[in-house]
């Protein structure tokens, strides 16, 4: 008996040591960020100490550029089926032209991760929910596909999956008959990275998107929000969105 427990102890030490080595070797090449989030250990639950947010500078957003959209589609396997009316779009580029002055600008529009999300209020099963750290998600295990959240979203951020899917990305499960929307790349955020769209925008040196912890006054996003004027889209609804914009 004691032999067995000794062996177990040995095994555990051996395994955790190997795990650390190999995990480090596996993770290292994937780390290429400008800002690493709080790398929370995998076994620790999220808390509201952190509130994730995004700041998008429309002035730096170029017309015709859709690097963020392409990165999102790649990350989550949004291949599209040639049916724009029913294909999912988690982030899209919106072009605005002022009716009075003719001034044009573009910006990416995605789920705003509101603090008081209407989609969460209306979901009958509670599948649409807000995580403690502010990320609004759809628990597709209990989503019944009623699409009420899509009716309720003031930003038309949600998409319904209209066909059978195969070959989903392992960290972005999605299936027919459920509703989905931008998750702030929650699987990356939980690993201490930034969303794919932000990473792509930064990698191409457009620097129009900043992601970070709104509750941390020393984070890059908090400093920029304090320094520069920014707005929420449909601010009059007082949803206190996590995504803010400069230049609108």
């Amino acid at each position, binding site marked *: 008996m004691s032999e067995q427990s000794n062996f177990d102890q040995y*095994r555990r030490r051996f395994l955790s040591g190997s*795990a650390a080595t*190999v995990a480090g070797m596996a993770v290292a090449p994937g780390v290429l960020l400008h800002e690493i989030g709080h790398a929370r250990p*995998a076994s620790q639950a999220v808390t509201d100490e952190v509130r994730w947010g995004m700041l998008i500078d429309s002035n730096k957003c170029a017309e015709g550029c859709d690097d963020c959209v392409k990165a999102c589609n790649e990350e989550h396997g949004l291949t599209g089926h040639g049916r724009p009316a029913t294909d999912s779009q988690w982030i899209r580029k919106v072009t605005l032209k002022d009716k009075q002055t003719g001034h044009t600008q573009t910006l990416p529009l995605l789920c705003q991760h509101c603090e008081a999300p209407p989609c969460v209020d209306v979901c009958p099963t509670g599948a649409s929910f807000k995580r403690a750290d502010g990320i609004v998600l759809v628990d597709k295990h209990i989503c019944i596909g009623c699409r009420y959240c899509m009716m309720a979203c003031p930003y038309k951020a949600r998409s319904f999956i209209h066909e059978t899917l195969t*070959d989903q990305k392992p960290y972005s499960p999605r299936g027919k008959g459920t509703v989905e929307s931008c998750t702030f790349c929650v699987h990356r955020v*939980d690993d201490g990275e930034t969303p794919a769209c932000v990473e792509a925008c930064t990698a191409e040196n457009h620097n129009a998107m900043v992601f970070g912890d709104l509750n941390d006054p020393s984070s890059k996003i908090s400093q920029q929000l304090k320094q520069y004027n920014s707005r929420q889209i449909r601010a009059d609804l007082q949803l206190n969105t996590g995504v803010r914009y400069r230049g609108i």
Partner: protein
Amino acid sequence: MIKHSLLVLVTGLLLGMVMPGQADDSLLPEIPAAQARFSETQGCVEPTADMRRNHMKYILHQRDETMHRGIRTKQYSLVECINCHVSDTPDAARVSSEEHFCSSCHSYAAVNIDCFQCHADRPVKTSATQAMPAVAESGSASIPVLAIEETTHE
């Protein structure tokens, strides 16, 4: 009349008993081998008998933990199950065929599985952070042993 039907019944029973007797083994599911072991002594993250009976309980609990609390430990992670139990070669079995690890038993037990409407049924290498299961450098074992920290279950 009664004697006749009795004769038919007995003949049918005898025939029925004889026939499958020859093909007994093919009735049980052929479960494909996994790509790694959890430890030297244990194949899966829990003893096999426990997993056979309770894997659903672990999966259901883990999904709520991951979804709502952001807990992404690997021991009961569905992604890790797939990484280990299904090969990532292009011709690996899909869940629709009986040769897929999950389907081999589920089709035998006639229990419908819903997971793969959304979840990938094969491992997909998308980036370095989503690599195949980290395997330990093991000198003695012929099958690689997984490097997963055991989580204490409540």
